[in-house]
């Protein structure tokens, strides 16, 4: 199975990084989350209800919809916050957040479970610094428009209805879905990021991860 990979690129000002990332990650997760599964006898299950919430950005002329789950929001904000801290404050730079949806494949001991990604979203961020308030105002609107285009891109990809993991049995639900949240159930995902400093060299957690994965195998 091939992993579907999509790349989104945005240029934002320093203080817009958080909201831009939240907007895109939440939009993707909105489409990749279902209600909680409740398995019943005879192998049937019911699905809970996903609520939605409008969020207005403070630094961008943009609003987006996210899943109504404070828990999920906290997790995403934490990841985006770490990304932003890694990007540094007030400096130009480039970075990339990757939102990867994967399935777990149980392996026999001593091998650990395998994580097989089936969809990876890479959001490349270019942070710029602006000199004055007028430029910031223009940037506010422009970034809002750009994010709108990205949302349309995301929706376009998702509505191709390409591979999605099969609905799991009760015993396998944790291999497909993240069941740790109380109110919603997104597909298993992980968020990683890498930062490129202004010199263009890649100082990355990705390299370390690659090495780690290779060693793990």
């Amino acid at each position: 199975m091939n992993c579907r990979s999509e790349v989104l690129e945005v240029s934002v000002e320093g203080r817009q990084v958080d909201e831009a990332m939240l907007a895109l990650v939440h939009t993707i997760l909105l489409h990749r989350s279902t209600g909680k599964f409740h398995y019943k006898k005879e192998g049937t299950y019911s699905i809970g209800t996903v609520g939605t919430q409008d969020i207005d950005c403070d630094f961008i002329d943009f609003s987006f919809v996210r899943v109504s789950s404070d828990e999920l929001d906290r997790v995403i904000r934490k990841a985006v916050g770490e990304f932003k801290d890694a990007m540094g404050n007030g400096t130009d730079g480039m970075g990339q957040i990757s939102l990867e949806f994967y399935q777990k494949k149980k392996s026999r001991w001593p091998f650990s479970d395998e994580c097989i990604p089936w969809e990876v979203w890479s959001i490349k961020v270019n942070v710029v610094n602006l000199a004055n308030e007028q430029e910031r105002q223009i940037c506010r609107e422009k970034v809002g428009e750009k994010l709108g285009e990205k949302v349309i891109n995301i929706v376009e990809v998702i509505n191709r209805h390409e591979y999605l993991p099969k609905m799991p049995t009760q015993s396998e639900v944790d291999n497909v879905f993240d069941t740790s949240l109380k109110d919603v159930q997104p597909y298993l995902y992980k968020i990683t990021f890498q930062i490129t400093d202004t010199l263009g060299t890649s100082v990355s957690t990705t390299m370390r991860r690659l090495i780690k994965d290779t060693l793990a195998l």
Partner: protein
Amino acid sequence: MDSDLSPQDKKDLDKFIKFFALKTVQVIVQARLGEKICTRSSSSPTGSDWFNLAIKDIPEVTHEAKKALAGQLPGIGRSMCVEISLKTSEGDSMELETWCLEMNEKCDKDIKVSYTVYNRLSLLLKSLLAITRVTPAYKLSRKQGHDYVILYRIYFGEVQLTGLGEGFQTVRVGVVGTPVGTITLSCAYRTNLAFMSTRQFERTAPIMGIIIDHFVERPFGNMGHMHPCNYRAPAEEEGGYTGVEDSQEVCTTSFSTSPPSQCVSALSTAHLKSLKPAVMDTLKVPVMSLGFSHQLYCSRLSYQPPVLVGAADFCHPSTLNAANPHQMGIPGKEGGVPQQVPVQPCHAAQAEHARASSCLPNDHVPAVPSGSGEDAEASSRSTDGKSVSPRDVMETTFTRKVGAFVNKPGTQVTTASLDLPFAAFAPRAYDIEENDPMVQPPESPATSSPLQGSLHSQGSGESGVPAQDDFVMVDFKPAFSKDDLLPMDLGTFYREFQNPPQLASLTIDVSSQSMAEDLDSLPEKLAVYEKNIDEFDAFVDTLQ
């Protein structure tokens, strides 16, 4: 093609499509209410949430959507469209976007109706939620209120995109293949929003004509009392109205061609004061504005019912098969087969649309000022011998020439053009009605505010209007002033502050003295600055 589908699947599919259409309309309309939407996730299925999404149902919207569908389903050649438009407080309207739910002939025979189609429809609704916040109309709808309102219209059949102007863009929300066809959801939105401002100018002259046309088509009998001002009988008293209607009541009186005393009495300050709250009342809430839209659009195909967001009973669980939650699946298979599709009446039967009567006066309010002027003007026709009406608000030294809605449509030009206060000095070409006996008023600056232009005195000839040739002001009566009411009024204020004293620095004597002093003190000042030069440098450094 249908023969490949089992009866149960066909039934399920029809139900899915029907409720998908209804939910689509709800999502679109709710996204244009101007408010942030928030619904709660629930881990336990309530059984009333179609497509596993918490989308509230506004009963009026559901009702009207069902009315538009009229028992049919969106199908091949039968599209369901939701048109979103904008209407200004002046009556101009513009289509902003049209959302289309269509079906084409491309079938996916192998797809599992009960599971895959259902889940994909759910995904499509989520996409719709996301996309509705991205099109330009969303921002406009969030800012609706005093200046404009957002309206919606649902229709079924052929898609009409001509109202979107040139260069409209299309965004496809998504597609879902089914055994009977492929469902497509898309949005066409206007990009040229500059259109409206030009239209407003074009419409300035015949604005009364538009109002007349506008309400002629209105079919609602109970809107009789909301008819435009020009239809009202003079001096008709109707009590028990809200502030909005009161002001409209007043302004309708002022529009009539009734005798001066009745008309002008309506033009009281109180009336003018009440105007403002009226405007606020009618335009303050998007909900109400949607209701208002209802009135105007009743002449068109469908409705725009008032959307009572706060009041509506959201998410009626109705009589459901409680035993069966929304979706039952047999996991492990490609699609779980739901054992029972929820039966969801989903219809909080509204017998009628709420007719928000208070909404209508939006159209009237802007017309009031000019209308009031014309009303007073109407009275002026019979004031040959009459003195200034006792309740004149504005004793500007001019008067209108012809009455509003009198059988002289040619004279129904804008207030600004007729009410040339200094028309005496204007070319005679403006004096369309040569037989008007009223004295031409002295000219004042062109009035941008219709209010200003509309208020005038009667029989200005007697009130000290100067003769055209000798510009001798016998008695200064400025605009908006009432000499007889307050000890300190606008006129007094003008007089007192008309000639302010010269600034001290500008008088010659003082300036010449200070100049000399300045010159003398310069060297000393320079010395002081040089002494403190280090301080200044340090200050400049901190700024960098």
